[in-house]
């Protein structure tokens, strides 16, 4: 049955590919229909099992960190890095990697799944490890889901057979119960830099919890991050950008050490140094001799963390806000972000450039240029000065900017 499914699935993949469709879910859909146990059978054979990484923010980067750290230890890692982070997408990714004879030559699966799909996944396949990052408000036109999301993650934790790794500092995540739990956390000095969703809106500050954490993110100076694991200090010069990515490293290493307890934890820290940011998550480009970083901001908490990580008076800043469906049609969420740590902004751009300029005005931050057209805005922003440059952009603005920069149409 598996071989028939593979054949059919690969066939559909070929046809959708020939017809020019990206169609990454269709082959998965077909196989899911004809053989509902397909994924379970394939994944159950993996000697190190299945890892699920979920939460509102940081899944893509954390999945990349975990996959690369395990690969460094010689494991063959299967991951859904095409961004198809739902069940059918995972099946499609399996179909792409599996041999026609049914050989699925991997040791472990590391899967990025959003909260709702992670629950669906647990219903059709086993999970051995889960790393749960955070529960934060997504774009605000989704309605009132934050408590519901925490319940979804609880279901994922309950279904996990070995260890669940939890963010100790997120109140909705740290209260999740499971048979075997490990935590990753922040030092007291860093906690105020990482507002939980409640801290963003309430006058009552959430306090650090008392559970012992396997890995603690201690401090970050420039890109030099320090961690504590089992009372020892570790220092890493990260290529990854930003404090929140440095925090994701703590979760990733806690997870990797649960999977491979015989590997010295120092090795994981050492190998983290070479890991680079994922697509659009702090990618860097060099334009006219200056480094330009592109930072995706998709919701208020991510934007707030990005500002906490990247506010710097020696940088030039640009912010690009679109309101297409993938960005969220409603731009009200900009008012749930506090911009007051940022210096003056050189350019604001995108379809809702004037909304962004208005938002900055009410935080008393000055804006040099308001240019709705993105190519013109990028040309202006990169035209002079060797100063380090940072661009915060919503999803579709990020894609457009990436195209402008990599197409070199403006250089």
């Amino acid at each position, binding site marked *: 049955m598996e071989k028939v499914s593979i054949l059919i699935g690969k066939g559909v993949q070929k046809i959708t590919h020939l017809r020019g469709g990206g169609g990454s879910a269709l082959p998965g859909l077909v196989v899911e229909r004809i053989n509902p146990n397909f994924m379970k059978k394939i994944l159950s054979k993996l000697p190190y099992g299945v890892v699920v990484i979920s939460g509102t923010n940081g899944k893509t980067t954390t999945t990349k960190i975990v996959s690369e750290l395990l690969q460094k230890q010689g494991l063959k890692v299967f991951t859904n890095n095409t961004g198809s982070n739902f069940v059918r997408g995972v099946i499609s990714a399996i179909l792409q990697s599996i041999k026609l004879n049914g050989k699925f030559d991997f040791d472990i699966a590391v899967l990025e799944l959003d909260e709702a799909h992670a629950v669906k996944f647990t219903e059709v396949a086993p999970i051995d490890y889960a790393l749960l990052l955070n529960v934060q408000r997504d774009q*605000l*036109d989704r*309605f*009132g*889901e*934050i*408590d519901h999301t925490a319940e979804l993650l609880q279901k994922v934790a309950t279904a996990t057979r070995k260890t669940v790794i939890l963010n100790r500092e997120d109140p909705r995540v740290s209260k999740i119960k499971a048979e075997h739990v490990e935590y990753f956390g922040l030092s007291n000095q860093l906690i105020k830099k990482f507002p939980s969703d*409640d801290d963003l*809106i*309430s*006058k*009552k500050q959430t306090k650090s919890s008392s559970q012992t954490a396997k890995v603690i993110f201690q401090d970050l100076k420039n890109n030099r991050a320090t961690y504590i694991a089992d009372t020892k200090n570790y220092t890493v010069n990260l290529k990854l950008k930003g404090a929140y990515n440095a925090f994701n490293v703590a979760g990733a290493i806690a997870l990797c050490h649960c999977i491979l307890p015989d590997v010295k934890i120092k090795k994981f820290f050492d190998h983290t140094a070479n890991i680079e940011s994922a697509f659009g998550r702090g990618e860097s480009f060099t334009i006219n001799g200056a480094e330009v970083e592109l930072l995706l901001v998709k919701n208020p908490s991510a934007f707030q963390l990005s500002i906490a990580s990247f506010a710097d008076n020696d940088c030039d800043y640009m912010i690009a806000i679109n*309101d297409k469906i993938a960005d969220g*049609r*409603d*731009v*009200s*969420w*900009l*008012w*749930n972000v506090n911009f007051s740590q940022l210096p003056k902004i050189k350019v604001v751009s995108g*379809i*809702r*450039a*004037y*909304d962004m*300029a*208005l*938002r900055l*005005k*009410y935080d*008393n931050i000055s804006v040099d240029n*308001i240019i*709705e057209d993105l190519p013109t805005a990028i040309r202006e922003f990169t035209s002079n000065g060797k100063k380090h440059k940072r661009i915060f952009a919503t999803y579709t603005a990020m894609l457009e900017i990436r195209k402008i920069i990599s197409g070199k149409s403006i250089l």
Partner: protein
Amino acid sequence: MTIKILHLYPKEMNLYGDHGNVLAIKRRCEWRNINVEVINYEPGDAIPKDIDIIFGGGGQDSGQSKIEEDLQRIGPKLKSMVEDGAPCLVICGIYQLFGKYYRTADGTKIVGANILDIVTNAGPERLIGNVIINSYGFGEIVGYENHSGLTSIGPNAKPFGEVASGAGNNGKDGTEGCHYKNCIGTYLHGPILPKNPKLTDFLIKKALERKSHTEIKLQKLDDEIEHKAHTSAASRPR
């Protein structure tokens, strides 16, 4: 002179950036050298004396159920303030709860604070998208709505405006919001005040006049960015 803004339930009712409205009032006072104090009111708190502006925003259903009982408790106090001419802006969830009742999909009737002559019944679908209204007295207003409750206005209140694009109170009678004395209830997020500065200044002016018992002429501000953001929002599809 200090203007005191009472921000109702900032923790429970905090969706859609509505607290940007408080920031808009605050800044437009500060830019005119008027002192401002914002009081974040949470359930169980006492309402301080000498409140000048009342504000409440939208929230998710779980937030709404947490505040219903408390709003019952402070309702009479808020009502007497509104009757006395205190300027007030309530959005979406609190707008509904300032009315007579909200009837949920299963027929449960949640009694409101009875400050505005409106009733709301749960509707079959969410009404979501950009909105433009022609208001009575504040010109064109832009915002973003996201609600399923359908509101009707009784004889003792007028609508805030008529819908030019969008659904408004109920998607049927073409009305949006409710205006009673100096209290405005509306479904518009955005948040509503920053892109509609005339409305912000109305609240500030009424607050100062009620406090000083004299007519006030507010100092003019440069609203170029406000107007451009308004125009840009008005040009977006539903």
